[in-house]
């Protein structure tokens, strides 16, 4: 396979930016949004380990100038189908390759109901006002850091899901983003669920070549209006040569529920900020994180559960297993505003270290300004127990089968909270196939 995307060496220069603007016939508000993000991008340098956020995440080997704005190219090979939709009757699907949409469809029935599911470009044609209102304005801040501004200035592909008021969408919608060797994906996901509506979205990523370099600098925005219900499943399965930077934020209004599952298996290095803002009374958010790392992977997840309104509940559970020399950082924060009385916040991170040289850092945190709250957090890190392996072996399991069973068992608590069987299976199989045998 040839490197098919990087045709110009100008990277993310002013010339590259101008060319992007020229090549896309976008409305003025979007051009302005891009321009102001680009100004921020240019004024900032890449973060260094001196900054608290990046203390444990070393990106000195990351060279932004090796990458460039992705061109629209036809994939040379058939793209994978994705693992989340196996056995699932989906109501629509979008596939993108190197940050450009190559396939997009939505069932007629859902279209009739007023559901919108399409690429950013498509929705920009059909419903520009929707994007003007929500895109990078309510949730993710384009000026947060070098990566959010890079994303906002240069994003090409991405998908938008909009569910109108009181509409219950039964069939999940599926989006898959694929990177080719050397590819760049600046995809954006925007989900808007109107009042009383209900929907499930499956979002996953993959690389054609597990070793090839690549970059993803993306954003996810989930906007929930009152009394809406969203199940959002996000599987990060980039190849192990991919640099992955992402800002993800949900805004959850009154009496809404958000079930957010995150599977993080891929990438060379990840730095993800996941932020849930509970902004209306009685909102609930449950986050299920499943991470498995190997080789020299480094995954850094910074989660923030921000209670801005009273009587909201949040429940974050992240489980991680690590093998080889891989490393994870989980930094969780529960923030409770003065107004957010009767908050019930929970966060937990459990790590299972499979090999001597793997390392997991857990840094839970609380920042509480209200007085009538209940917040609990916990973190554990342990090794796989040789006695468990022996026990399973006395019952005929090979050492490798025993390790697999124990690792999958470690994740079972979080799998039990994942509502979709296809997702549980996909994660379970992916992890089981990665677990190797150790002495």
């Amino acid at each position, binding site marked *: 396979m040839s490197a098919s995307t990087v045709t110009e060496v100008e990277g993310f220069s002013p010339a590259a930016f101008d060319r992007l603007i020229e090549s896309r016939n976008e409305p003025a508000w979007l051009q302005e949004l891009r321009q102001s993000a680009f100004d921020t991008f240019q004024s900032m340098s890449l973060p260094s380990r001196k900054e608290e956020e990046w203390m444990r995440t070393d990106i000195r080997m990351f060279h932004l100038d090796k990458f460039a704005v992705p061109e629209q190219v036809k994939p040379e090979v058939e793209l994978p189908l994705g693992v989340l939709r196996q056995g699932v009757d989906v109501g629509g699907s979008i596939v993108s390759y190197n940050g450009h949409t190559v396939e997009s469809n939505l069932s007629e029935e859902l279209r009739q109901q007023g559901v919108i599911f399409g690429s950013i470009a498509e929705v920009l044609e059909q419903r520009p006002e929707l994007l003007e209102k929500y895109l990078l304005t309510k949730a993710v801040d384009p000026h947060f850091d070098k990566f959010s501004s890079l994303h906002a200035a240069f994003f090409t592909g991405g998908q938008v899901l909009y569910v109108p008021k009181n509409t219950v969408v039964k069939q999940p919608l599926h989006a898959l983003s694929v990177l080719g060797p050397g590819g760049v994906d600046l995809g954006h996901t925007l989900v808007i669920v109107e009042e009383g509506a209900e929907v499930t979205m499956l979002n996953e990523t993959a690389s054609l070549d597990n070793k090839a370099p690549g970059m993803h600098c993306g954003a996810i925005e989930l906007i929930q209006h009152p009394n809406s219900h969203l199940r959002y499943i996000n599987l990060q399965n980039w190849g192990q040569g991919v640099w992955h930077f992402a800002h993800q934020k949900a805004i959850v209004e009154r009496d809404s529920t958000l079930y957010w599952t995150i599977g993080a298996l891929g990438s060379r290095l990840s730095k993800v900020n996941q932020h849930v803002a509970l902004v209306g009374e009685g909102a609930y958010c449950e986050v299920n994180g499943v991470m498995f790392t190997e080789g020299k992977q480094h995954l850094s997840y910074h989660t923030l559960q921000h209670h801005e309104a009273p009587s909201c509940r949040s429940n974050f559970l992240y489980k991680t297993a690590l093998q080889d020399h891989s490393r994870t950082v989980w930094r969780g924060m529960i923030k409770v505003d003065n107004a957010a009385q009767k908050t019930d916040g929970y966060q937990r991170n459990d790590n299972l270290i499979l090999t001597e040289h793997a390392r997991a850092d857990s840094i839970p945190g609380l920042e509480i300004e209200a007085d009538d709250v209940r917040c609990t957090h916990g973190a554990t890190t342990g090794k796989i127990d040789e006695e*468990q392996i*022996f*026990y399973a072996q006395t019952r005929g*399991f090979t050492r490798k089968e025993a390790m697999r069973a124990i690792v999958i068992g470690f*994740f079972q608590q979080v799998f039990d909270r994942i509502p979709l069987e296809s997702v549980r299976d996909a994660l379970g199989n992916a992890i089981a196939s990665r677990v190797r045998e150790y002495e």
Partner: protein
Amino acid sequence: MTDVLKIENLHVAVEGKPILKGVNLTIKRGEIHALMGPNGSGKSTLGFAIMGHPNYEITAGSIHLNDQDVLEMAVDERARAGLFLALQRPVSIPGVRLADFLRHATTNVRNPDRKEGEELIPMREFRKEIKDKMNHLSMDMEFARRYVNDGFSGGEMKRAEILQLAMLQPKFAILDETDSGLDADAVRLASQSIADIGGENMGLLIITHHDKLLEHNPPQFAHVMLGGKIVETGTVKLAQELHTDGYDRIRKAYPEAAAAELEMNEEEVSPAV
């Protein structure tokens, strides 16, 4: 030809410390052997050594299953060859349902040549079988949905071990205090079940400090271990004697082994220099 498990001159050390000092024991399939002996004499060590626990180093001697050299086999190969150890302290595996665990175990043991990833025995067939077995052991099906030994009471763990014995149908089983932790009714039920499961088809090595299990499973041979050696072998009468009278006579009759026992215990309490 009857299957034979033959242990000769077995020496075992843990962390460099000798525990077993020349054990000889031959069990034919269909026989019941009782293994008795005071705490710390090395009974569990023998069980671990037979199954191949990595912390138990074989420093001399041999174990054969017919003409197969057991010491050359990995732990799971031993299980697939027909050896089973019910642990004195079963290990919990959180998140792994007993039913799933047993389905995998049963598949491997029944198809010793199965490669990783090959089909498991069909769910239907397995469910029917485990249901029957659990009924027989007066166990609720709900139990199989729990995680392996996770939060089990002492008695529940032992019953789960018996269920596994029933499913795996080994040629030889070592039951290490499978009767301890059970209430009186449960001991009776367990003893009866083991008799039903074992019978002619199994060679049993029963390690016990009680007599109920042996009442239902009368041993042809009773062995006494002291200081890492089997010092005396007798009939069921010997087992009864030890239950009523304890080990004083044995210690007197075998002063060398008694001295070894003292030494083993002393080393344990003496502080590291």
